[in-house]
């Protein structure tokens, strides 16, 4: 989207549900165990915010993503109410991708049906590992069998576009185990697999206390194995950590990497709106009090200059296997990326970390492994 163009653009919506049954040991995200009353107050506030935001923003919605936390800890009634408000307040494009994150053990048959009826057409299930020892170590509340049951509910409710999240480079994990994990997951009726290497965040219990992590060379190999195994099973990598069957990349996520505007609703949700990035407050009492007036929720506002936006286009776009489209960059900023980034492009092309093709700039396989180092250099 050309820099600064504000009107007539489709945008995305992210809705945050900051509750789960129990926080995982590696999680440093905004979520907390839910109590019935608190959940009720939050959903009321969220609906107020949805309605208020809908009045303020015209335009079409190309995708919706409900994430958490664990959105499926909400009751069927709550889930339905949220989607009712959403449909009433925003103009969703026909065929818009609508995803809900669900954790095994919380997706009942009833909830799956309710979501389907609410217009949800994609589910993202947090599996992380097929091995119980890994799930226990991570503090997950479910087993692989729980996942299979949830998947079954999803399919019975009519879902055909389903993602599973996996994690590798787990403490104590071997290459062989990861290979098993991939093969068993890829054999399931899924359209999409996300495979993230575990990042131990400070301030998490796992950071403070965990078995030894696999050596770096193993982690490197596991990443390569992921691509080999999944592509053999019919999944194509389209982003650093994401693999999809033909035609099923997550459109919502692609939007993030291509700087499609998005509106974040709910506690602590991030937005990119009119070349400004901001976040809703992370303070629950303040959210509950001000939800009907979304402007009051906005924090950490950062207006993006053209240079900021260009930097973002590069470091976000390079996450995609396809890379950054030179034509799109030229169209958005009126200048070719080779002009601005000539020395960096030269340096990394020569060292075999960057592909400078006719239409796109992308990371090589070698480059993906050290993507941070390269992306940092594209910041203007």
């Amino acid at each position, binding site marked *: 989207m050309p820099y600064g163009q504000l009107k007539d653009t489709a945008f995305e919506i*992210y809705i*945050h549900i900051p509750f789960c049954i129990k926080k995982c040991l590696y999680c440093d*995200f905004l979520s907390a165990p839910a109590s019935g009353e608190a959940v009720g107050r939050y959903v009321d506030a969220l609906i107020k915010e949805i309605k208020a935001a809908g009045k303020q923003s015209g335009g079409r919605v190309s995708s919706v*993503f409900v*994430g958490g936390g664990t959105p499926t800890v909400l009751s069927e009634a709550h889930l339905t109410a949220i989607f009712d408000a959403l449909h009433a307040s925003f103009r969703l494009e026909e065929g818009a991708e609508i995803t809900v994150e669900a954790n095994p053990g919380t997706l009942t048959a009833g909830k799956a049906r309710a979501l389907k009826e609410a217009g949800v057409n994609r589910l993202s299930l947090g599996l992380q590992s097929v091995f119980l020892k890994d799930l226990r170590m991570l503090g997950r509340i479910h087993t692989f069998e729980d996942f299979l049951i949830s998947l079954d509910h999803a399919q019975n409710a009519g879902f055909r576009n389903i993602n599973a999240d996996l994690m590798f480079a787990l403490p104590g994990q071997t290459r062989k185990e990861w290979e098993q994990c991939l093969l068993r997951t890829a054999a399931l009726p899924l359209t999409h697999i996300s495979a*993230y*290497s575990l*990042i131990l965040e400070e301030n998490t219990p796992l950071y403070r206390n965990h078995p030894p992590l696999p050596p*770096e*060379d193993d*982690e*490197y190999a596991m*990443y390569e194995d992921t691509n080999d195994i999944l592509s053999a099973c019919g999944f194509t990598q389209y982003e*650093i*950590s994401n693999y999809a069957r033909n035609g099923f990349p997550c459109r919502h996520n692609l939007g*993030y990497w291509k700087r499609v505007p*998005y509106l*974040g609703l709910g506690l602590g*949700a*991030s*937005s*990119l709106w009119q070349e400004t*990035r901001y*976040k809703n407050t992370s303070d629950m009492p303040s959210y509950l009090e001000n939800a009907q007036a979304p402007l009051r929720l906005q924090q*950490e506002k*950062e207006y993006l200059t053209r240079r900021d936006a260009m*930097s*973002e286009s590069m*470091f*976000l776009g390079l996450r995609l296997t396809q890379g950054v489209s030179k034509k799109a960059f030229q169209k958005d900023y009126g200048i070719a990326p080779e002009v601005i980034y000539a020395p960096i492009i030269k340096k990394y092309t020569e*060292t075999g*970390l960057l592909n400078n093709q006719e239409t796109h700039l992308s990371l090589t396989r070698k480059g*993906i*492994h*050290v*993507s*941070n*180092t390269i*992306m*940092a*250099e594209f*910041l203007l």
Partner: protein
Amino acid sequence: MTDQSKIRNFCIIAHIDHGKSTLADRIIEKTGLLTEREMQDQILDNMELERERGITIKSQAVRVVYKARNGEEYIFNLIDTPGHVDFNYEVSRSLAACDGAILVVDAAQGIEAQTLANVYLALDNDLDVFPVINKIDLPSAQPERVINEIEDIIGIEAQDAPRISAKTGLNIEDVLEQVVERIPAPKGDPKAPLKALIFDSVYDSYKGVIVFCRLMDGTVRKGTNIKMMATGFTAEVVEVGYFGAGQFIPCEELSAGMVGYLTASIKNVRDTRVGDTVTDKNRPCAEALPGYKKVNPMVYCGLYPADGARYGDLRDALEKLQLNDASLFYEPETSVALGFGFRCGFLGLLHLEIIQERLEREYNLDLVTTAPSVIYKVHKTNGEVIDLTNPTNLPDPSEIEYMEEPIVKAEIMVTTEFVGSIMELCQERRGQYQGMEYMEETRAMLRYRLPLNEIIYDFFDALKSRSRGYASLDYELDGYERSDLVKLDILVNKEEVDALSFIVFGGSAYERGRKMCEKLKDEIPRQMFEIPIQAAIGSKIIARETVKALRKDVLAKCYGGDISRKKKLLEKQKEGKKRMRQVGNVEIPQKAFMSVLKLDEN
């Protein structure tokens, strides 16, 4: 005119932390020049840095009025002296401006190497010294033991020594009375030709250089045409005065026996060298006061701005510091690795550290410092001798006949239980044992001749750590000696990093090279390719390490589109890169240049 018999010019000598500054504060307080409210904690140490380090860098003076028990009023000129071996010469000139000295000894710790050195310096300058036992309020105080020690070791009478607590103010009057009784009044003829000793000078942006002096003979007043006998500089006096606490108080004239200051629109402290004699240009004295010498830097290092764009700021800051510090030397130099900077000369390591800290703190500069070096004398085959201050400038080995390095005479005072480990340390550092004396049953004074270059690395730290902090050191330069010296170069990714080259004793080269490589391996972050780090003498590689190539550096999930968080991480990474120096293809953190200064850690 002030009655000479009512003047007392004295200083306080003490080991670091034995309470010199606190006693000075009490003296100022008890003489009633200031109310308690006006008292800063330590008036003489008015530089912030000095206070934090607990030492005095620049000597200063204060004039107070004391009404003695005999009913008479006395003028006390208390001259403060720096307490570190780096400033030995300044100490000796400050002492020369006095007629007597108070020796402060800590009642718990007793005499230290520095104490002895300063007492001998005072006795050399014919000062009358009387001891004061401080910190008698400490539970560990052993005044009797310390008194015996003073009598045995220094040989001055100490039974009458006031036993005080400068901290609480206990028995300070006894000290003041003893100043009157035991320190002689100055002598000198006010009508003789002017003869004044410069013991310090500071630069003031309004008055120019303010010269601190002690008048030995004659009188000086506004309009006197003065001449500095060593530098030959002449000027007309604009103002004379004495030292209030923290301020300059102008007066009519200064005459023989008095301590005060003069200004004469002097632009540069280099014209008013400490130790020089001020005389009347029109009526000069017959000969200058003895003891003047031009102090030369002993230790050199390169100072570079971390941000190359601040080269001009660094130059301005050095210029300003030099206004007040004639012993600071600097000249521009260029390094392939570090860009534009300065080769700076210092009196010693402490002086170096102080200047470095002042540049960083007062001038807000981020600095990269190269390894300190002494001055080597390089005798070339063509008969030429060069003073080498920067290892990079070492001529080709084929042109070198031989090299000499500076040697110091060191005295180390240590409790007997650590004698063995300190001797071992000195041996490791190529020390030549000169003897040992027992000061008392439990303490000994070790005498060594040591190469200065072995002292400037981390000798102090090693000394402290091997004696649990109890050893103290004093040293003075004792000439040059021929030595087997080599230049050790460090190659990063096959490229020589000039800023890391240094001169080292041939026998220690391998050890030092290996440690350098190990340290650099830890300091240089992994990059996209493997980086060999090598230590070399000439073309011969003597040690090597490898920084493995970076394999993994990926940020995973962007939770719920929180791009800002990811961007911040990337920005941090980019910031880190900015603090790197590019040498060939390799980025070397500035920290790495400094880390090699302390190789013997842990």
